[in-house]
């Protein structure tokens, strides 16, 4: 089996300001394949918590739109996960 690639997959950072915004993320997790980095599951998302999640390139547009629509501030921590995976090996063999 070929290894899984993560080309253009993104990691979003969102800090829900209220319960409504926390629910937006929980709802997005029900309809999209979000891989939660922190917290480790959607059910733990709470107000004022810094939430990091990974999402495919394909789904990232709709996630961004949903966050914009709900006036939620977000940051894209990682724009291309595959690139960061390759860059983690930044020490040369001595």
């Amino acid at each position, binding site marked *: *089996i070929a*290894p*899984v690639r*993560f080309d253009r997959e993104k*990691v979003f*950072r969102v800090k829900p300001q209220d319960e409504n915004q926390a629910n937006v993320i929980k709802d997005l997790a029900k309809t999209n394949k979000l*891989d*939660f*980095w*922190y*917290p*480790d*599951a959607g*059910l*733990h998302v*709470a107000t004022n*918590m*810094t939430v*990091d999640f*990974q999402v495919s390139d394909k789904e990232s547009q709709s996630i961004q739109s949903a966050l914009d629509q709900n006036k939620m501030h977000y940051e894209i*921590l*990682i724009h291309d*996960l595959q690139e*960061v*995976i390759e*860059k*983690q*090996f*930044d*020490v040369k*063999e*001595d």
Partner: protein
Amino acid sequence: MPGRHSYAKYNSWDKIVAWTEKMVHKCPDMVSRIKIGTTVEDNPLYVLKIGKKDERRKAIFMDCGIHAREWISPAFCQWFVYQATKTYGKNKIMTKLLDQMNFYVLPVFNVDGYIWSWKQNRMWRKNRSKNQNSNCIGTDLNRNFNVSWNAFPTTKDPCKETYPGPEPESEKETKAVTDFIQSHLKSIKAYITIHSYSQMLLFPYGYTSELPPNNEELTKVAKIGTDVLSTLYETHYIYGPIASTIYPTSGSSLDWAYNLGVHHTFAFELRDRGRFGFLLPESQIKSTCKETMLAVKFIAKYILKHTS
């Protein structure tokens, strides 16, 4: 041959196995390798015992790599073993520690998952056990311990990343570790588990917002531990009980060990705070391990002095 092992790089499972053999050969008086069980895919689970042969001495059990994708965690366990053996006889504190206590170090808890994260899917978290009536693979080993197992509205869906397994201790890896700790319970005075990321030092409980009886003591140790850690590179860690510091969890190894009677249990969430997440560059391995070493040595010193 698996290739050259390096403490400044992430190492594949094959390299780690070869490294465990090398450490035993290099320091036969101080390091021994114990096979505590096997995984679902029949890989060995090795614990390295660091210290003298005396079984009655105080001991600390430390595990790394319970979640496959948290690669900095096994890197730290390797670093710890290397530093312990290298500085014994040279560094006052390490010499005192190893003269009077033992360390049991499990360099990779979730071996199958770690191998999978190297070969197939870098972002893999769970182990690799098959689930009945589902095509989804794996159990979250840090939800599989027999302590308030599956108590929260978590999920019984094997496709979820935090699937706790079909029953407590259903996983061979969990069972091997719990059997080992139970059979060495008289000597084990502290349990340390190494995770990543988010820079925290945590202690029980995760399954309840109630505080453990020695909460004040654990808070004090965690505070000083994080203070000591920050002295090298000013890396800021927060500390506290799991439930209020991160979020409530059930079936975690930390709570299980505490309720078994190991009343000094700590979980480190190593670097970083989210810039790289699970993909911490190799160039940060050394500094991360060096600062963590300070905190672990402080905890060990505390255990030596304050437990009976």
